[in-house]
C-alpha cells in the first residue's frame, strides 16, 4: 500500500516531427506492463508505480517512428517529439500476398512512406520517390503534362521485352501498357492518396509474382482510415509555374542568313526571309498548374474510412498541351466477427481530360527557318507562314509552321478509369492460425479521343481538313485466393508461416475501328483503322514458406507456376522458384556487448523470375499463332473491276517461350547508434536467358523481316548501397542525410539466333536524319545498346576532319567493318542524395541525383552540316554544333555514325528543393496549417552539349524539355 501511495502521474503531449499532435502513440514504462496511448490531441496520462518514479524509463513507440526512451527522474510532465523512421524494425512491410515485419524480411526491399516523399509538383506517383532508393532509376519522359517516367529497377533485365517493373496498387497488379489517350499508367493515380511504396528488388522478394517480376515490383498502398478515430479533414493546395530552362542551340537568323548565303543552292538562296524568329521561343510558354486535394478520414461507427477527392489542372510548357484530372478514392476497412473477418474495400475513380500538343512541333521549331515570320499574309493558311509553291499549295516534304501545328491542331482525349478491389481476410474461428484471403479486383478504363486538323493546316490542306476519332476500352480482372497458416513451435524455437494460393488475371483491350473523316466533305471516310481486340490471361499457383529458428535464422522459399496465354500450350507454363536466407547477426548472444552497432542482418537469396510482356499489339499478345490480318479498304488490291481487301499472314514463332531471369542477391542491413546511422549494402547478379527481343530474321525464314523471338542471354551485375544518417538531433534542430549509390554493369552473353558468335550482332537504335539508320548494336561480350560507330579523326587543333575516319581494319578503305563498339547509354554509377534540415517550424529538404558514364548520341549535332540548310524548295535550320565541326556535307554517308557525336552525358541534377513552414494551430487551435515552397529541376551540371543529358534511350533528337517548376503549397488539417 505504501507503493500505492507513492504512485505518481506523468502527463505529456506527443507530437510528430512537424509538431502536429500524434494520437495513438504507445507510452510504456520500460520493463513493465504499465502503459497507455495518446488521445486524439496527442495527450497521455500515465500512472507510474513508485518504484519506477525515479529510476524508470518511459518508452514512446509508434509505427513509422523511432522509439524514444526518456528517464522519468521524478518529472511529472514529459513531452515528446517523435522522429520518423523508415527502418523501424517492428514496421510492417507489404510483400506479395501478405505482410511481414521488417526484421523478418529476407529479400532486398525498400519501403518509402509518405513522410519521405519528394515535395512539390508531383503529378505522377513515380516522382514521389525519384532519387530515394538505391538501384531504382527513375527517368522522367520529358516535360509533357503527366508524361511520367521510365522506371528501371537494377537496370532492367530484358533487351526489348518490357523492362518496366510490376506495379501493384492495393493488391491489384496493373498492366504496364499505355492506355490510349493517357500518357502513363501512373498518371492515373492521385499521388496524394498514396501512403507508401514498397519496392521489391531481388528475385527472392519478387518471385512470388513469377512471370511479371523480372524487373522488380513496386507495391503501392493507399491511405486508409483508422479504427476509433474521429473524422480528420486534410486539405492541400498547390500552385505551380513551369518555365523552360533551355532550348536547343540552333543558328540565329543572322547566322542562318550567312550560312544560306554561302552554302545553299541558287534557288534556295532566294527563299531567305527578312524576319528574325526564335521558333522555339514561340512554341513554349510559362505553364501553370493547380492541384487541390481534400480528404476525410476516420471511423464511422466501426467502419474506418478514407474518402478523398482531387483536382489537378496542369498546363504543358508546349503551347496548347493540358491535362485536367479529377480523382476520387474511397477506402473502407472494417472488421467483423470479433476481428476474425477483415474487409478492405478500395475504389478509385479518375477522369482525365487531356489536350495533346503535337510534339513533332518541338523538332520542327528547332529546324524551322528563323528568317521566316510566324504570321504572313496567307489567308488559306489562317494567316500563318508556310512553305508554299507557285500555285499556293504547300511545298511537298517541307516542314510545317510549328506555331500553326500547335495552334490549329486540336487533339483531345477523355479517359475514365476505375480501379477497385474487395479483399476478405478471414481468420478461421476454430483454427485462428489459419487465414483465408480472397481478393477480387478490377481495373477498367475507357478512352475517347479526337484529333481535328482544319483545312487551313498545310499538312491536310489538300485533303480539306481531317477529323480523327478513336476509342479504347480496357478491362483487367483479378482474382486471388490464398491460405496462410502461422504456427509458433516454441519447443523447436521455430515459427512457421506458410502461404499457398491461386491467382487469375485477365487483360482485355478493345480498340474499335477508328476513322479519319473529311471535314470538307462531311461524312466521307478518308481512312479507317481496323478494330483490334486483345486478351491475355495469366493463371498462377503460388506458395511461400517462411521459417524462422530462434528468431534469428530466417528462411523464405517461394514457388510460383504461371501459365500465360501468350505462349503455345507446349511452352506456356513456367516455374519460378526462389529461396532466401537471413541471419539476424545482431540477435546472436555474442553481439550483445558490441557497442554502437544496434542492428546487423545478413541476407542471401536466389530466385528465378519470368517475362512475357511483349506489348499490347496482336503480335505481342499472340506471338505463337499463325494469324491472318485483314487490310483496311485503303490497302486493297484490284482483280478485274473488284477491289479486294487483303489477308496477310503474320510472322510468328510457334516456339516462343518465357524469358527467364535467374538472380542472386547478397545483402547486409545495418544500424548504428540506435537508428542514428542505418542502411544496407547489396550485391546482385541477374542472368536473363531466352531473352525476348525483336531481331532481324534471316531473310525468307519467316513471314516478316523482324520478329520477337528468344535470342540469347544478358547479365546484370551490380552493387547498391544506402546510408541514412541522423546527423543532428538537438532540441529544435534536426538534420538527416540519405545517400544511395548503385553500380551496374550489363553485358550480352549470348545471341543464340546467330550461330556464329563472332558475328557483329543485332543493330538497334533508330536515329533521325536518314531513314532506317541505326546507331546501336547488341554484341556478345559488350553492353546492350552499345554505340556502333566510326572513329572520328581529328586535326592537330582537335577539330574533327570531315569524312575522315580511322581505318580500323587497315584494308585501305572505310567500310562497315571499320565500325567499333563505343560506350552505351546506361550509367555505370548513379547516386541519389537527399537531406532534410529542420529547425523549429522550418524544414528544408533537397533531393539530388547524379549519373556517371551514361553516354548520349547527340542526334541534332550529327545532322548539323552547313549544306543541310538547303533542301531544294525550302530551308531548314541546324544545330549551332556545326560551328564545332564546321562540316559542310552532304556527301559523307558515314557522318552520322561518327563517334564524335556520342558524348559523355554524366550529370548532377538538383531535382528538388523544398522549404516548408509549420504555421501551427490557428482558428481556435482547430486548424493546423503548413505552407511550403518548392523548386524542381533546379539545375543540371553536365558536359553534354545537347539539350538534356538525361534520356532513357541514349538517343536525343527532338525532346520535350523538362521545365523548371516553382510551387507554392498549403495544407490544412482539422
Amino acid at each position: 500500500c505504501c507503493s500505492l501511495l507513492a504512485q505518481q502521474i506523468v502527463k505529456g503531449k506527443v507530437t510528430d516531427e512537424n509538431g502536429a499532435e500524434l494520437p495513438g502513440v504507445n507510452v510504456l514504462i520500460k520493463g513493465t506492463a504499465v502503459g497507455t496511448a495518446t488521445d486524439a490531441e496527442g495527450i497521455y496520462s500515465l500512472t507510474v508505480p513508485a518504484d519506477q518514479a525515479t529510476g524508470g524509463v518511459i518508452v514512446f513507440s509508434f509505427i513509422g517512428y523511432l522509439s524514444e526512451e526518456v528517464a522519468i527522474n521524478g518529472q511529472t510532465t514529459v513531452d515528446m517529439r517523435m522522429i520518423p523512421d523508415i527502418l523501424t524494425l517492428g514496421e510492417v512491410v507489404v510483400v506479395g500476398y501478405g505482410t511481414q515485419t521488417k526484421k523478418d524480411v529476407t529479400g532486398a526491399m525498400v519501403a518509402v512512406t509518405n513522410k519521405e516523399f519528394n515535395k512539390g509538383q508531383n503529378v505522377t506517383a513515380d516522382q514521389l520517390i525519384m532519387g530515394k532508393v538505391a538501384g531504382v532509376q527513375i527517368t522522367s519522359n520529358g516535360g509533357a503534362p503527366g508524361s511520367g517516367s521510365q522506371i528501371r529497377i537494377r537496370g532492367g533485365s530484358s533487351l526489348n521485352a518490357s523492362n518496366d517493373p510490376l506495379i501493384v496498387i492495393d493488391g491489384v497488379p496493373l498492366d504496364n501498357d499505355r492506355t490510349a489517350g493517357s500518357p502513363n499508367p501512373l498518371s492515373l493515380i492521385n499521388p496524394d492518396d498514396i501512403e507508401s511504396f514498397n519496392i521489391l528488388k531481388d528475385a527472392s522478394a519478387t518471385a512470388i509474382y513469377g512471370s511479371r517480376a523480372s524487373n522488380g515490383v513496386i507495391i503501392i498502398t493507399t491511405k486508409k482510415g483508422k479504427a476509433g478515430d474521429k473524422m480528420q479533414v486534410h486539405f492541400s493546395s498547390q500552385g505551380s509555374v513551369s518555365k523552360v530552362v533551355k532550348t536547343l542551340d540552333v543558328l540565329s537568323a543572322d547566322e542562318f542568313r550567312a550560312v544560306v548565303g554561302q552554302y545553299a543552292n541558287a534557288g534556295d538562296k532566294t527563299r531567305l526571309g527578312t524576319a528574325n524568329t526564335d521558333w522555339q521561343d514561340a512554341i513554349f510558354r510559362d505553364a501553370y498548374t493547380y492541384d487541390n486535394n481534400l480528404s476525410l478520414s476516420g471511423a464511422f461507427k466501426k467502419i474506418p474510412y478514407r474518402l478523398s477527392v482531387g483536382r489537378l489542372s496542369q498546363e504543358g510548357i508546349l503551347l496548347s498541351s493540358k491535362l485536367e484530372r479529377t480523382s476520387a478514392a474511397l477506402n473502407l476497412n472494417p472488421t467483423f466477427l470479433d476481428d476474425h473477418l477483415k474487409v478492405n474495400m478500395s475504389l478509385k475513380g479518375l477522369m482525365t481530360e487531356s489536350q495533346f500538343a503535337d510534339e513533332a512541333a518541338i523538332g520542327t521549331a528547332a529546324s524551322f527557318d528563323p528568317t521566316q515570320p510566324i504570321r504572313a499574309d496567307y489567308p488559306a493558311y489562317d494567316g500563318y507562314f508556310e512553305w508554299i509553291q507557285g500555285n499556293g499549295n504547300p511545298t511537298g516534304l517541307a516542314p510545317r509552321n510549328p506555331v500553326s501545328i500547335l495552334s490549329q491542331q486540336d487533339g483531345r482525349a477523355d479517359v475514365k478509369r476505375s480501379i477497385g478491389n474487395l479483399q476478405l481476410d478471414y481468420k478461421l474461428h476454430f483454427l485462428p492460425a489459419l487465414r483465408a484471403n480472397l481478393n477480387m479486383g478490377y481495373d477498367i478504363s475507357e478512352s475517347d479521343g479526337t484529333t481535328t486538323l482544319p483545312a487551313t493546316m498545310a499538312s491536310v490542306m489538300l485533303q480539306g481538313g481531317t477529323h480523327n476519332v478513336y476509342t479504347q476500352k480496357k478491362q483487367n480482372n483479378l482474382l486471388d485466393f490464398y491460405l496462410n497458416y502461422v504456427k509458433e513451435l516454441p519447443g523447436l524455437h521455430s515459427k512457421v508461416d506458410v502461404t499457398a494460393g491461386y491467382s487469375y488475371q485477365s487483360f482485355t483491350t478493345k480498340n474499335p475501328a477508328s476513322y479519319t473523316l473529311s471535314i470538307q466533305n462531311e461524312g466521307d471516310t478518308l481512312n479507317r483503322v481496323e478494330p483490334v481486340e486483345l486478351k491475355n490471361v495469366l493463371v498462377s499457383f503460388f506458395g511461400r514458406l517462411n521459417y524462422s529458428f530462434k528468431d534469428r535464422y530466417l528462411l523464405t522459399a517461394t514457388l510460383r507456376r504461371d501459365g500465360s496465354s501468350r505462349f503455345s500450350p507446349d511452352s506456356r507454363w513456367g516455374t519460378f522458384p526462389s529461396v532466401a536466407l537471413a541471419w539476424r547477426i545482431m540477435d546472436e548472444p555474442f553481439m550483445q556487448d558490441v557497442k554502437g552497432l544496434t542492428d546487423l542482418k545478413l541476407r542471401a537469396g536466389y530466385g528465378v523470375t519470368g517475362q512475357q510482356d511483349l506489348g499490347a499489339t496482336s503480335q505481342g499478345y499472340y506471338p505463337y499463332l499463325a494469324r491472318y490480318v485483314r487490310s483496311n479498304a485503303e490497302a486493297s488490291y484490284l482483280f478485274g473491276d473488284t477491289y479486294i481487301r487483303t489477308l496477310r499472314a503474320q510472322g510468328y514463332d510457334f516456339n516462343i517461350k518465357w524469358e527467364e531471369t535467374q538472380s542472386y542477391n547478397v545483402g547486409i542491413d545495418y544500424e548504428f547508434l540506435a537508428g542514428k546511422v542505418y542502411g544496407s549494402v547489396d550485391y546482385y547478379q541477374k542472368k536473363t536467358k531466352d531473352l525476348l527481343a525483336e531481331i532481324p530474321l534471316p531473310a525468307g525464314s519467316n513471314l516478316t523481316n523482324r520478329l520477337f523471338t528468344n535470342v540469347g542471354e544478358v547479365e546484370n551485375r551490380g552493387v547498391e548501397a544506402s546510408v541514412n544518417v541522423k546527423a543532428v538531433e538537438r532540441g529544435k534542430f534536426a538534420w538527416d542525410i540519405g545517400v544511395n549509390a548503385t553500380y551496374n554493369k550489363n553485358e550480352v552473353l549470348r545471341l543464340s539466333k546467330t550461330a556464329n558468335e563472332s558475328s557483329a550482332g543485332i543493330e538497334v537504335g533508330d536515329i533521325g536524319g536518314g531513314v532506317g539508320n541505326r546507331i546501336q548494336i547488341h554484341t556478345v561480350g559488350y553492353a546492350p545498346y552499345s554505340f556502333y560507330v566510326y572513329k572520328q579523326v581529328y586535326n592537330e587543333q582537335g577539330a574533327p576532319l570531315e569524312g575522315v575516319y580511322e581505318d580500323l581494319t587497315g584494308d585501305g578503305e572505310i567500310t562497315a567493318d571499320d565500325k567499333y563498339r563505343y560506350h552505351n547509354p546506361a550509367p555505370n554509377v548513379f547516386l541519389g542524395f537527399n537531406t532534410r534540415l529542420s529547425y523549429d517550424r522550418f524544414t528544408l529538404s533537397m533531393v539530388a541525383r547524379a549519373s556517371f558514364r551514361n553516354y548520349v548520341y547527340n542526334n541534332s549535332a550529327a545532322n548539323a552540316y552547313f549544306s543541310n540548310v538547303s533542301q531544294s524548295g525550302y530551308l531548314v535550320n541546324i544545330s549551332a554544333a556545326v560551328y564545332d565541326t564546321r562540316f559542310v556535307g552532304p556527301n559523307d554517308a558515314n557522318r552520322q555514325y561518327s563517334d564524335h557525336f556520342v558524348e559523355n552525358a554524366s550529370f548532377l541534377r538538383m531535382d528538388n528543393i523544398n522549404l516548408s513552414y509549420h504555421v501551427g494551430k490557428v482558428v481556435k487551435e482547430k486548424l493546423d496549417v503548413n505552407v511550403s515552397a518548392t523548386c524542381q529541376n533546379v539545375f543540371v551540371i553536365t558536359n553534354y552539349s545537347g539539350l538534356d543529358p538525361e534520356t532513357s534511350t541514349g538517343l536525343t533528337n527532338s525532346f520535350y524539355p523538362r521545365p523548371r517548376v516553382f510551387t507554392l503549397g498549403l495544407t490544412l488539417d482539422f
Partner: protein
Amino acid sequence: LGVLGCTDDLDQVPKYEDTSANIYKDFANYKSILAKAYSGLALTGSQGPEGNPDIKGGNEGFSSYLRQYWQLQELSTDEAVISWTDAGLPNLHSMDWTSTNQFIEALYYRIFYQVAICNEFIRETTDGKLSERGITGADFEEAKHYRAEVRFLRALSYWHAIDLYGSVPFVTETDEVGSFFPKQISRADLFAYLESELTAIESELVPARQNEYARADQAAAWALLTRLYMNAEVYTGQGRYTDAITYARKVIDAGYTLEENFEHNFLADNDQSTEVIFPVASDGLRIQSYGGMNYILKGPIPRGKNVEYGIDAGWSGPRATKNIVDLFPPIGSGIDEREMFFTEGYTLEIGSVASETDGYPIIKFKNITSTGQPGSHVIFVDTDFPMFRLADIYLLYAEAVLRNGQGGSRGEALGYVNDLRERAYNNTSGNITDGQLTLDFLIDERGRELASEAVRRTDLIRFGRFTEDTYLWPWKGGVENGRGVESYRKLYPIPQSDLIANPNLDPKVNGY
C-alpha cells in the same frame, strides 16, 4: 466475376484476326490471301496508305517493292540521277553503295517477304490440304489457278533476286516458318529452279488474256521466261536465246496488240491498254501507299506542277542524263512521241547531281486519263505500272534473233521494231532497214521505248555497258564525265543485316 474457370482460359485467339488453321477452311478467304501476294508489289502494308507495314525498320514508304525496284534499276544508270540526300540515295548513281545501303536492303527484304508469303500460300493449298479442308469442285480448280499464280509471283521475285543480287538465300514451301538459316543458292541453280518453276506452272495458269485484270496468266509466265532466257548468259554464262525466242513468240501469238497511242500505256486509265501483259495495279482510293506508282509518277514531276498531272505536287526527283536525251531527235521536235522530257527551267547538262534542275526529268506517267480527266484522288494515283508489255517482248524477240537465237527470223524482228517506230513517229519515216537492225540500235531503241520502266540496269548489263568504261554517262562512278567501276557492281550486295542474321551467307560469292 466468373473467373474461377482456370487454365482453359489460357487458349486465347484474337477476335478480329483468324489463324491459318481456320482461314483456309473458307474458300472466300483464298482470294484475299491471293490479293495480298499481288499487293506486296504495290503496297507497303495492311493499312493504306501506311501504319501497319509488312516489313519493319525504316520508313514505310521507302520499303515499297516497286519504288525500290525502280530505283535500283534506274538510279544506277544513265536514265536517272536524283538530288535528294537520303542516306545511301546519292550512292546509287555514284555506284559506290555499301552493304548497309537502306534502299538495297529494303528491296532485298521485300523480295524475300514476297517469297515467304507465297511459300505460305503454296504450302497451305496443296491438293491434299485443299481436299482435307473440303475445297472441291470449281473451288478446287480455282484454288489451283491461285496457287499457280502465287508460284508465278514467287518466281517473279526470285527473278528480281537473281538479277539484282545474284546468289541469294533460298527458301521454298518445304521450309517451315521459323527462324532457321536459309542456305545460299548459286546463281546457276537459282536459274534452273526458276526455269523449272515457270515451265511447270505454264499449264496451271489461266490461258493468256483470259484472267481477271491485274492477275497473272500464261502470257505473264511466258514474258518472265523470255526475260529470264534473254539474260541467261549474264546469270549462268550460257546463252539461251533460242528459248527466249520460243517464249517471246508465245506471248506475241497470244493476241496482244500495240496500244495505238503510245502515251495511253502510262495514264490513269492504262488498265484499258491492249498492250500490257502484266501490270502492278494502283488506285487513288483503294490502293494507297507512299511508294509504288505514287513515287514513280510524282518523283520526276517538278515541284509546283500538279493540276496538269492530276496530283497534289511533284517531288522534283529523278532526272535523266543527256545520254538518254541524245537518243531522240532534237528536243521539242515532236518527231518521236516517246520523247517525254520536261525541259522548262531545267538544263541538259548535269553540273551537279545535287541540283534539282540539272538534267531533264522524264515525265512518262501521269495521273490523268486518256480523256484528260484527273485520277480519283489528288494524293494517291490511279496509274498502273506495266511490269511487262508487248513492245518489250517485240524488242527482246529482235534482240534474241540478233544474238543468234534459233526459231525466229530477222524479217519478223525488223517488222516488230518498225511497228514500234511507226507508232512513235505516226508514220513510216522513222522505220529502219535490215542493215540498221543491230544490237547497238536495239539498246538505244530500248532506251527510247522503255525509259523509266525499270529495265535499264538489266539491259545495260546484258549489253556490257553498265560497269565498263566503254560506255559512260554523266556522274557514272561519281565523276562528272563518268568512269568505269568495278565489275562486281553489276550486282547489289546482300545487306549487312542479313549477313549478320544468317551465317550461311557468303558475300564473296557475288564478288563483295
